[in-house]
């Protein structure tokens, strides 16, 4: 009876070479059946046809910062269209020489967003920073003090417009959507009906028609002499539109909550507000992070629809640039640039949402 606690000795064998390492990976992922092998080979052939020409067009035969004349004699990409027009693409009709203002406002916004990403910073002071930040941003954009010339909102365009419409659209739509979702679950028939009607009406019309209504119909109902800023009207339309979609996603999260959670909260004597705020919403909103992100991403991209009410977002400023005969031929390059810009923003949002899901995961 030697050492009764040690398990009987047993040999640990290595798995066969064909199952691990590079060879194993290739076998299991690329060549595990004859039709997958066929697919692998044909995809590789196609990539060989497409990638090298694109690479030499984009990077080898291309020019990066030249006048448009220099682009005529080359086979590659004329990336010059972007640096040569960058201030119009990014800032549109914002007066020349004042473009540091929207530039720094955007940097401030991005800085605040990045600061807020860290859950360690979610304290009361964060709200104060945001309040200060928003006032500074507003001052930078509108001007009128410290010797900055006044820039009407009609001249706000390009990237700042895109960022502002989408950022404030998301930030305001989310709480509104949550309220609508709670309202739709309400036991009070009036509130419930109101929320259902609102959600279904908004979801029943395209965003474009809401934008049209906000810019053409809505002013007709206002008393004479009263005007509401056009950017603000578009902003409100985007918020109202996004909120309806958020509401339905959040409702899904609320319905996924087990009844036991409500009962446990009730049996502690928590009231409705406390139950929702402390127990239900933190869990329900965590469940709906992935679908919410989908809605926020499309809200971000949908801001480009404001062109139809003559607001110049970054997509429209690019198009205007391309209407200049000197640059018309280089739309591919300009649109690739825009695509990359949009992609970076969307990718940042989705990778943050994945990180957030991980941070909030508590087992189970």
């Amino acid at each position, binding site marked *: 009876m030697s050492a009764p606690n040690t398990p009987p000795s047993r040999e640990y064998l290595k798995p066969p070479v064909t199952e691990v390492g590079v060879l194993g990976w290739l076998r299991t992922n690329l060549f595990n059946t004859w039709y997958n092998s066929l697919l692998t080979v044909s995809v590789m052939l196609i990539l060989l046809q497409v990638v090298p020409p694109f690479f030499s067009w984009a990077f080898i035969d291309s020019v990066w910062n030249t006048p448009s004349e220099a682009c005529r004699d080359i086979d590659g990409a004329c990336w010059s269209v972007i640096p040569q027009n960058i201030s119009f693409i990014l800032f549109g009709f914002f007066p020349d020489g004042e473009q540091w203002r929207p530039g720094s406002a955007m940097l401030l916004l991005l800085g605040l967003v990045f600061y807020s990403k860290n859950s360690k910073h979610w304290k009361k002071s964060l709200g104060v920073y945001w309040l200060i930040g928003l006032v500074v941003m507003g001052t930078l954009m509108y001007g009128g003090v410290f010797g900055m010339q006044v820039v009407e909102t009609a001249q706000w365009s390009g990237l700042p417009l895109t960022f502002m419409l989408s950022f404030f659209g998301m930030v305001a739509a989310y709480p509104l959507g949550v309220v609508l979702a709670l309202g739709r679950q309400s036991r009070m028939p009036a509130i419930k009906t109101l929320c259902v009607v609102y959600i279904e009406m908004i979801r029943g019309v395209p965003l474009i028609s809401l934008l049209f209504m906000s810019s053409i119909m809505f002013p007709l109902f206002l008393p004479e002499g009263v005007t509401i800023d056009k950017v603000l009207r578009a902003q409100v339309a985007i918020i109202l539109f996004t909120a309806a979609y958020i509401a339905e996603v959040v409702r899904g999260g609320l319905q996924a909550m087990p009844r036991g*959670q409500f*009962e*446990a909260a009730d*049996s*502690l004597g*928590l009231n409705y507000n406390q139950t929702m705020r402390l127990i239900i919403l933190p869990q329900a909103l965590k469940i709906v992070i992935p679908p919410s992100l989908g809605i926020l991403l499309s809200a971000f991209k949908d801001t480009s629809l404001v062109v139809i009410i003559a607001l110049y977002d970054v997509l429209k400023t690019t198009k205007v640039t391309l209407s200049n005969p000197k640059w018309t031929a280089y739309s591919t390059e300009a649109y690739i640039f825009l695509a990359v810009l949009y992609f970076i923003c969307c990718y940042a949002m989705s990778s943050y949402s994945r990180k957030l899901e991980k941070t909030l995961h*508590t*087992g189970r």
Partner: protein
Amino acid sequence: MNETENQVETTPAGGLIIEVNSMHKWYGDFHVLSDINLQVKSQERIVICGPSGSGKSTLIRCINRLEEHQRGQIIVNGTELTNDIKNIEKVRAEVGMVFQHFNLFPHLTIVENLTLGPIWVRKTPKKEADEMAMMYLEKVHIAEQAEKFPGQLSGGQQQRVAIARSLCMKPQVMLFDEPTSALDPEMIKEVLDVMIDLAEEGMTMLVVTHEMGFAKSVADRVMFMDEGQVVEENNPHDFFDNPQHERTKLFLSQIL
């Protein structure tokens, strides 16, 4: 609101804590509870048993208004349960409830689960609530898990946390709705031990359970329910050794 103020006082031993007078409840057309009468004195331990669907869980859920009764009267700690939500919340704060499936809040740590009620309902300062939470966690032998999340604990541990969560509200009476039914056999004992400790300290308890050993050793009274009625009610000795009704005999023969 004068009358509401003085109802929070501790009821002395032997005083009436729960009074249910000819109470009826329907689920739609289904008459689930019929003419229930029940008096619970302070420090009394009552076990309610009966076949599934007999309405025993519904009865104790009516006592903290998780279910609404349609006729009759339920008075808890001097407050009658009506549609008045303020009264309901007041009663709930005084009545602890332990569920079959624990119902801990999975997004909060164990200690946060315990302090939530004291902080938000009782307005206890956080530091004090934390200390009290740790005291009750020690009492249910689980203090070392305080910073974990419920999902990281075993079923038996979760149920003990759930008991501690109720205790943190310093309830006048505790309701147990089949507290061991969802547990693996080897975890039942650790939960029952905690409940026995509580009983010995004089907690008023209403327990729906199939643990007849617990009923024999702890209960002052055993109630047997079937088809929404209280069929038989007796001290555990007479209840188990000398059941009066055929239905009780049948039930006991099936589970013992």
